[in-house]
């Protein structure tokens, strides 16, 4: 059985680069390829011979990030070990008008690290040092390639942890988290990466190294840290981060409540919010995703559950006990037919097992699937889930729902058989229609996976041309030459066709005769 995760592509025309390039572009490409080869010796001087990959088969291993549907072999890959090397590489790219694409661990799900054949892929995988853990100031200083979970491992002996916990936290890098403003299951209470970074050192697209903030909060001037986080590699590369550490909670209690249907589960969530309880996490799974999880990991969720709700509470023991009693009452009132409660690590892990395996588990019940990432106001969840069920019934495409119920972040898994002609396209249509639902309800096209290439062409569905133009003005303040992860995050005519409102004046490098637009 083949497992393949691809994502929504219905809302944009398929963009096969080889066919969408206008005539004559091939010539420009050849020029750029020459320029790139000329760059290699200089890149080797900066990063060392072992820090530059030119071999075609080795370059191919970097052709995509976690969204494998989009792939392009990078022109050259560099693996710097210091901030200075990163800045020098970017300075060289700027001087030569060569685009660069930053890459952390490559776990992103929006093709934000999709390489370019005419560009340099700058990967931070050799910058993996936890420079300092400073429990007195409740922070740690790390290099960008450090895995998210390694910060918590380093802080744990002092009774601290790093709060953002994306599901890929074993491997995903802090630099990537910064680029994507990653959250995680517990962001309901603890917020996102942007709420946990005190300081950054960044290499700018013009080749400078700038320190912003540090161990003290709120450095004077504009909040460049806040604006940089979540910029998806379009404003430069974080070369060092000072992150906040959070005191390990005294007690963590996880409740699992089983309901016969999604409506009752949704009602329980609403009443928890209305009562003023703020859980660390609130997750929900529907019958289909429960079925998949059972098949994959035998998570032993209550038999006959049409919906499973997982609520995690953490904090001072007395507060957690009080809140847990409240959540239990509210779930019972909403019609939960079974409630399990766990405070020990092993028991809690058992409750989480099904949820954490859900995405991969879907491979057990479907040869292929698309993972969507959209957000609706929490109060619209019930209605939107109803709409998704209708969409699924009408199209005959099964949709499994796994979502962060506390913040309205949906991850519908659209199932299809990729051996069946046209099935992929129909699934993509359903996935796109789900995104439409999110927008119609005043939500967002992405809650945590980012825009990248994948949703760049969907941005105009959420933002006006003026909004996008303003974002572009901001972007160009950092990257006047347009070399930093180009064609990600904001729509471009080449990627999406004519996009009203996005600036179409001559690119500065084109004007200077140093680059061609294609």
């Amino acid at each position, binding site marked *: 059985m083949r497992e393949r995760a691809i994502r929504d592509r219905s809302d944009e025309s398929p963009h096969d680069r080889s066919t969408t390039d206008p005539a004559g572009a091939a010539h420009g490409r050849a020029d750029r390829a020459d320029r790139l080869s000329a760059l290699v010796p200089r890149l080797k001087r900066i990063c060392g011979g072992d820090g530059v990959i030119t071999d075609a088969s080795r370059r191919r291993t970097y052709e995509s990030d976690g969204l494998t549907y989009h792939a392009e072999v990078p022109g050259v890959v560099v693996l710097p070990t210091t901030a200075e090397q990163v800045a020098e590489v970017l300075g060289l790219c700027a001087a030569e008008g060569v685009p660069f694409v930053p890459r952390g661990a490559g776990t992103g799900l929006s093709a934000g690290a999709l390489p370019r054949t005419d560009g340099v892929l700058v990967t931070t995988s050799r910058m993996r040092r936890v420079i300092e853990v400073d429990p007195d100031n409740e922070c740690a200083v790390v290099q960008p390639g450090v895995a998210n979970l390694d910060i918590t491992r380093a802080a744990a002996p002092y009774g601290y942890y790093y709060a953002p916990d994306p599901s890929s936290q074993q491997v995903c890098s802090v630099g990537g988290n910064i680029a994507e403003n990653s959250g995680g299951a517990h962001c309901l209470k603890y917020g996102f990466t942007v709420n946990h970074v005190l300081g950054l050192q960044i290499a700018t697209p013009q080749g400078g190294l700038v320190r912003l903030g540090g161990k003290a*909060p709120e450095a004077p001037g504009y909040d460049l840290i806040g*604006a940089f986080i979540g910029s998806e590699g379009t404003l430069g590369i974080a070369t060092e981060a000072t992150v906040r550490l959070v005191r390990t909670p005294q007690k963590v209690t996880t409740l699992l409540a089983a309901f016969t249907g999604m409506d009752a589960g949704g009602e329980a969530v609403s009443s928890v919010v209305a009562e003023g309880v703020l859980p660390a996490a609130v997750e929900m799974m529907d019958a289909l995703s429960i079925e998949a999880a059972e098949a994959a990991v035998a998570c032993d969720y209550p038999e006959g559950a049409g919906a499973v709700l997982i609520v995690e509470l953490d904090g001072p023991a007395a507060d957690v006990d009080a809140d847990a009693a409240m959540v239990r009452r509210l779930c019972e009132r909403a019609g939960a037919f079974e409630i399990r409660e766990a405070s020990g690590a092993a028991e809690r892990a058992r409750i989480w097992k099904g949820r954490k395996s859900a995405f991969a588990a879907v491979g057990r019940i479907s040869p292929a699937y698309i993972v969507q990432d959209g957000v609706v106001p929490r109060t619209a969840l019930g209605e939107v889930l109803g709409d998704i069920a209708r969409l699924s019934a009408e199209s005959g495409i099964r949709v499994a729902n796994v979502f962060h119920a506390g913040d309205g972040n949906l991850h519908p898994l659209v199932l299809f058989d990729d051996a069946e002609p046209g099935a992929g396209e129909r699934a993509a249509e359903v996935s796109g229609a789900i995104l439409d639902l999110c927008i119609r309800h005043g939500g967002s096209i992405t809650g945590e996976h980012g*825009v990248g290439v994948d949703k760049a062409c969907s941005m105009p569905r959420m933002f006006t041309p003026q909004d996008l133009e303003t974002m572009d003005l901001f972007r160009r303040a950092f990257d006047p030459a347009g070399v930093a992860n180009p064609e990600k995050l904001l729509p471009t005519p080449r990627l999406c066709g004519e996009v009203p409102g996005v600036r179409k004046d001559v690119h500065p490098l084109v004007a200077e005769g140093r680059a061609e637009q294609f």
Partner: protein
Amino acid sequence: MSGEDQQARVEADGAVGALAASGVPVRPGADRDAVGGVVPRWVAEPADADGCAAVAAAAARDGLALVPRGAGTKIGWGAPLRRCDVVLDVSALNRVDHAAGDLVVEAGAGTPVEDLADVLGASGQRLPVDPVVPGSTVGGVVATGLSGPGRMLYGPVRDLILGMTVVRADGVAASSGGRVVKNVAGYDLGKLHAGALGTLGIITSVTFRLRPVPPAAHTVSARADDPARARELVASVQRSHTAPTAIEVDRPAAGAVTVHVLLEGPKDGIRARADEVSSLLPGSSVSEDLPEGWGELPGGPGDTLLKLTSPPARLPAVLDALAEAAPDAGPLPVRGSAGSGVLFSALPSATDPVNAVRAVASLRARVEEATGGHGSLTVLDAPRPVHDAGLDPWGTVPGLPLMRSIKKNLDPDGVLSPGRFAGGI
């Protein structure tokens, strides 16, 4: 005023017609409208965001300098303006759209924070931003990025912003973010406008994430003999499992340091937590009320208001520096978040302006040295004579070239609150 500015002013003099053409009520500026001593030529009072855009567009056509204003409680903050032709009063932008079930509110920039609190409180919710300066509007709090004690748990005000709509210098309205608590689509430009003192755009509405009002709150307070002891007390609470909302220090000009710990949460657990904190702070008292002066800025009218940041463990060095900063004024009063490392202080209004400038410079140098370069001192507000005596309100600002570049792209003619921000932005 430079000759160039004079010239710009003269050229702009025929512009009232253009402003009137915006269709927005415009009146001549009066003394009470003065911004840092500069009386604007006009005050525009638009009824809504479209009116703001119309005024900005009209002002842009004539190169008029525009300064947005809410309740005007902090209108003099920052460096003195190079020019101030039009004050744009956003008071009428006070629409509140509260989505209680989603714990989200969108509020017009002119909404008084107290009014917003009333609306939210009716649903048992709140925006966890302390009312540091009474009478402030939503726009004013965001534009100054001013956060109080609760910042330690809930984050500074910028962390609570989900979305924002601003009018650009050229009169174009643009939004970023959204109305849902989780959203990573596009640049989070709201962060940039938070604390920008109206130099990058005119904030017209802000969407915030909210919190439920906690069922119970207790404050535990204790005296500390000296700054080092204060830090020990703070650190012991931070290392505990009591999850405080705020850890504040308060030292009046003449007096000892008091450490206040605010706990909030379910009724069932609050007493046990307060007892635990109390056991960590010898001689402490527990109260269900907030202490006097909670979250208020130290000093009084006409004082030079200072903001100091440091890594939390360097608190004693900063407190010591403040005690010795102005020999002729005695120890400076200080209040702020010992838990997060943001303190406020004030040089008395009676300080000779030249001495005030010197005191700021030497204090800044000492803070930077004592914090290994991590800390900073900025002057939030100072009387005109202190500015005129050569005050540098900002000190070294890393990333200034990037900031200038952002300003240049969003406000190429430099018409939004010119001169008010770091580096003369």
